[in-house]
């Protein structure tokens, strides 16, 4: 079976081992990302969940150095981060790409209009290898391009600290939002294994 090839198993319970391994990976990836955010000076994070962001949001919630603001709609988070920036906080907003679409008016008429920096961490639903929201996925990069928002697709967990550090420098220097697209593999999750 394909999964046996990708995840060689030496023991008795293949599924459990894959799950355990996947869980270890997601936790490790989440810790790497949250440590990188703290290392970049981020101290306030607005979030709205996606299942693929579960471990990341848990790490954000558990971090004592971060003010965590769970929002009900992503556009709120843009306002909260803008307000916090104006009084001296360094902020990040974590959401799914559907939430990025929800936030577009605030991104345009607050962040871009006032030249306010913000790190956007956007889960890339509908990315290649994802089975859901392919339309959202197909429009994510074009919309970022249309808004003139520079973005990077993050696939390697080990690159995350450096990319997050650089993205924070870029958003501060350009005084525009910068987006990091979080893929399944970055987050330690498996892309869909085979076609239906």
């Amino acid at each position, binding site marked *: 079976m394909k999964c046996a090839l990708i995840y060689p198993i030496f023991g008795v319970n293949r599924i459990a081992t894959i799950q355990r391994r996947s869980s270890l990976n997601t936790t490790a990836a989440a810790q790497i990302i949250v440590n990188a955010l703290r290392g970049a000076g981020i101290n*306030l994070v607005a979030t709205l969940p996606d299942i693929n962001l579960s471990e990341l949001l848990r790490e954000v919630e558990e971090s004592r150095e971060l*003010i965590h*603001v*769970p*929002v*009900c*709609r992503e*556009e*709120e*988070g*843009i*306002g*909260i*981060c*803008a*307000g*916090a*920036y*104006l*009084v*001296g*906080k360094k*902020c990040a907003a974590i959401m799914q790409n559907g939430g990025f679409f929800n936030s577009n*008016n*605030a991104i345009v*008429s*607050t962040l871009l*209009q*006032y*030249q*306010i920096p913000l790190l956007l961490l956007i889960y890339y639903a509908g990315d290649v290898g994802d089975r859901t929201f392919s339309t959202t996925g197909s429009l994510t990069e074009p919309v970022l391009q249309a808004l003139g928002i520079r973005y990077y697709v993050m696939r390697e967990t080990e690159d995350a600290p450096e990319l997050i550090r650089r993205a924070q420098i870029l958003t501060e220097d350009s005084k525009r939002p910068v987006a990091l697209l979080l893929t399944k593999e970055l987050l330690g999750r498996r892309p869909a294994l085979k076609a239906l």
Partner: protein
Amino acid sequence: MQRFDCLKKLAQVAGDALVVSSAGAVTLEWNALRPGDGNFRVRTLGLCSSIALGMALGLPERRVIALDGDGSLLMNLSSLPTIARMKPKNLLHIVFDNEVYEASGSKKTATGAGTDLVGLARAAGIENAQWAESVEVFAQVAERALKGDAVSFIGVKVGTERAPVGPYPMDEVENKYRFIRYVEKSANIAILKTNLPASYD
């Protein structure tokens, strides 16, 4: 009741509170009554309460006042449960409810059809939420809220009259810089920093 009369009372007790005001005439009227760099004008309809929440969370020792409108809050109702969840002790959220989209052709909002914004705030979990039925009551409630230690929400039913005031004196980017510099100076913190050129390394 007129919004301008309430704002006059608020200006007497606002002190050095940071004031975030919604897109619309309330911004111009407030700026006429308390001009200064501690005012931030919001241009995204709905975002006033969220921007104020971000300021209140980011600077917990400083009072923050949101001057919101019914059309604006109706567009961002989800900010109410988020404010209730975060419970910023230093935030006073005031909504002037004139039941129309005043800046957009005076079409009726949902509050004109019966929606109760104070009821929504309470149901969202903001316990200290009430209507102020007169200018005098508003002045008392606002002063108490600014001295208190819990997030407060005040609704005021007002008419659609506008006070004769001038235009806002600056654009968005200047507003941002002046506001940040004011916060830096008054809170004694450094926010905007620059670096030496690479040749100095």
